[in-house]
C-alpha cells in the first residue's frame, strides 16, 4: 500500500521509499526510512499536502511525494 492512500488517523510502517534519487535522499534524511512508524495526523484542507508524525515530530509531504513511499502493517483508523 502507498503512504498516500492512508487515511487520517491511520498508522503504518515504512516498507520502501521510492522516487527520484534526490527526493528519496531528502525523505530519508528527515528520518522517514524503512522500518519507521508513521502516523497520518491529517490532510490539508485542500487534501494536499499531508501531515505525518514520524519519530515524534510533525512533517508535511505532498501527496505526490508520498505516493512514492510504500507502507505495510497498516493500522486501523482510530
Amino acid at each position, binding site marked *: 500500500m502507498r503512504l498516500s492512500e492512508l487515511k487520517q488517523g491511520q498508522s503504518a510502517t515504512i516498507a520502501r521509499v521510492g522516487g527520484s534519487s534526490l527526493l528519496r535522499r531528502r525523505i530519508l534524511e528527515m528520518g522517514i526510512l524503512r522500518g519507521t512508524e508513521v502516523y497520518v495526523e491529517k490532510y490539508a*484542507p485542500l487534501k494536499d499536502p499531508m501531515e505525518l508524525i514520524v519519530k515524534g515530530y510533525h512533517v508535511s509531504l505532498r501527496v505526490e511525494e508520498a505516493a512514492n513511499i510504500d507502507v505495510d502493517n497498516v493500522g486501523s483508523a482510530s
Partner: protein
Amino acid sequence: MSAKRLTIALAGNPNSGKTTVFNNLTGTRQKVGNWPGVTVEKKEGRVSFNGIDLTIVDLPGTYSLTPFSIEEVVARNYLLDERPDVVLDIIDASNLERSLYLATQIRELDCKVLFVLNMADVAEQRGTKIDARKMSELLDVPVVFTVGNRGEGMQELLRRAVELAGSPGGTPRQRRVKYSQDIEESIARLLGFMELKAAGPPGYDRRWTAIKLLEEDKIVTERLVAAAPQAGMEILQAAQALRRHLAERFDEEPQIVMTAERYGFIAGIVREVQSSSTQQRVDVSRTIDLVLTHRLFGFPIFIFFIWAMFQLTFTLGEYPVQAIEAGVEGISATAGAMLPEGLLRDLVVNGIIAGVGSVIVFLPNILILFFCIALFEDTGYMARSAFLMDKIMHLIGLHGKSFIPMLMGFGCNVPAIMAARTLESEKDRILTILITPFMSCSAKLPVYVVLAGAFFGPRAGSVIFGLYLLGIVLSIITGRLFRSTLLKGADAPFVMELPPYRMPMAKSLLIHMWDRSKIFLTKMGKVILVGSVVIWALSSFPRPPASSEAGKGPNAAPAAAARTSDAGGQADLEAAQRRAQKAAQTEYSLLGRIGRLMAPVFEPLGIEWRGGVALLSGFVAKEIVVSTLGVLYATGEGEEDGDLEKALMDAGMTPLSALAMMVFVLLYLPCFATTAAIRRETGSTRWMLFSIGYSTAVAWLMALFVFQGGRLIGLS
C-alpha cells in the same frame, strides 16, 4: 599581547532554538549580511569571554550536510573551508533522533564539536529523559544542557567551548559512525588508493572525503579534480567502480544505504541515552493545530491573519507614513524658504529631501510587516500557512511559502520582495521575486483612479478590478513559464517540518524585525537616494533658455492659460503662467526629450509623448505618473481632478488608450525602490535587469494587444 580570538560556529536543525541561543550569546551585538554570492542570511556576533574575543557565526539551519539546498552548501563550505575553532551543534532534545543526523555528519567532518542539548525541559515535559553523560561517552563529544528561551546555560556553554578550542582535539576512530562491513571495506580501499595517489582536496579529512566520493558528492568531486586533475580522475574512477560494486551488493544506491545506516547508528545511540515514557506527543501544539489547520476553519482563520497583517502594515502603517510625509514636507518648506531660489534650492528640495523622504516613507510599512512575519515565523504559523497554501501555489510551480510575499505585493513590492527571504530554496525565491511585481501595488491605484474615473465613469470599479485580475493571471502564467524554462526543476520537495507552536519572545521578534529593516535602510536606501537625485537631474536639465516661453509646448500651456483666464483673476493667471513654465521646463528637460524620442515606442499603444514621459517618471514611484501628467498638461495642483481629465481628453486620449495606459502601468518596470530590492534580494544585477526587461516587454505587448485589438473590433 594581543587578545586571543576564537571563531565559534553554531549549527543545528531549523526550529532547534539555534537562533535563540545565538541571540542569548551575542545580545544585540550582531552583524547581519549575506553569505558571499548567495542570498542566505549570515549572522555574526562578537562577545568577549574571559579576555578572549569570540566571533560567533550563526550557520543556516539545516537537517543535514548533504549539499542539496543552498543553505546546506553554505553551512558545509563554511565548516570545511573556514575551519571555525569550535562548532556548537544545537540539538533539539525533544527531537533527538533527527537532530543527531546532522550531529553525526558534523562529527564525520572531524572538527571540534560540542553538542548543545537545547530545550531539554520541553522534552522532559513530554516524558523523555536524556542521559547526557552516556551520550557524551558514547560519542566522545562534550555535551552541554541549555534552555534557550530562558537563557540558561549560556556562560557554561562559552566556558566549555573555549576549553574545547584549547584541547588537542581530533575524533577517536572508534567513536565514529561505523558502516556495515561492505561499505567500510569500500571506504578502506578508496582511502588506500587515495594515500597511494597522495591526492585529495587539501585540508579535508581523508576518511570523510572517501565517504563523500562513495556518495557521489558533487562538490567534493569537483574539488578533488580541481586539486589534482590527473590523480583526481583516477580516484574518481576507483570510486565509481566501488559504487557500482556496492550498488550491486545492496541493490540500492550507496548514498541511500549510507543514509539508512547512519540512522541505524543513531537509533542505537538513542536507545542507550533516551528513556521515553510516551510515544506520541499529546500537547498543546496538536490541539492548536486542530483548529488552525482545520478542514473548514483553517482557511478562514488564515485569511483573517493575512487580512490583519495587511491592515496593520498598510492601514496602521499609513499614520506614521503620513506623519513622515508631513515632516518631509515641513523640512522641504523650511529649506525652500532658507535657500535662495535657484538650482541649489531645487536640488536640495526636489532632489535630496524628496529622495530621502522616498526612502524613509517605506520604513513604517517595512517595520510592521517584518514584525508580523517574525511573529509568524517564531510562533511556527509560517509553516502552517505554507501547509495550507501549498496545493494552490504548487499549481504555479511555487512553494506554499511564496504566498505571503506575493500577497504583500498588493501593498508595496519593496517589503514583499524582502519577505521572499522566508523561502528556503533559492530558485523558489527568485521565481517569487520575479512574479511579485505583477501584483498591483497600492501606488499604482491613484493612476487607475484618475484614468478609469475619467474614461470609464461608473464602470471604473470593474475596470480596476479587471486590472488586478490581469496582474494575477500574468503572474501565474509567468510562474509556470519560468518554472519550466529558466528556473527548471527544483520545485523543492515539500518535506517540511511543522514545528511545535512556541510563544514568541519579544527580544527575538525585535531583533528579527530590526535586522531586516536595517538592510533596507542601509543597503537600499543609498541606491534609492542616488536614483532619486538622478531622476531629478534628468527632469531639471538642461534648463530652458530664459526667453523660451510656455508657448513652445504645442497646445498645453495656452489651453491651460485660456481655461484659467475664463475664471478670471490676476492670481489665477499668474498660477497658470507658473504651471505653463513648469510644463515647458519638463518638456525641455532630458526626461522630456527622452520621452519625445521614445514617442514612436508608445504610439502603437495609443499613448502620446506626454503619457510616455509620465510613465518614465513613474520609475521613481508609480504615483508620480499622475502628478507628471498634471505638470505636462499644465493643470494646477490642488484643483479638481476634472481638469486633468479634460486636458487628457482634449489631447486625444480615448477610453481604449486610457485602458492601454493602465495596463502598461500595471505591468511595466517596477519602481526604483523595487528594482533596488530585486537587485539586493536576488544578489544579482542580471536578475534585476531581466526583471525590468521582462516586465516592460510584457507591459508593452499587453498594452499593444489591448489598444490594437480593441481598435480591430471597433472600440475607441
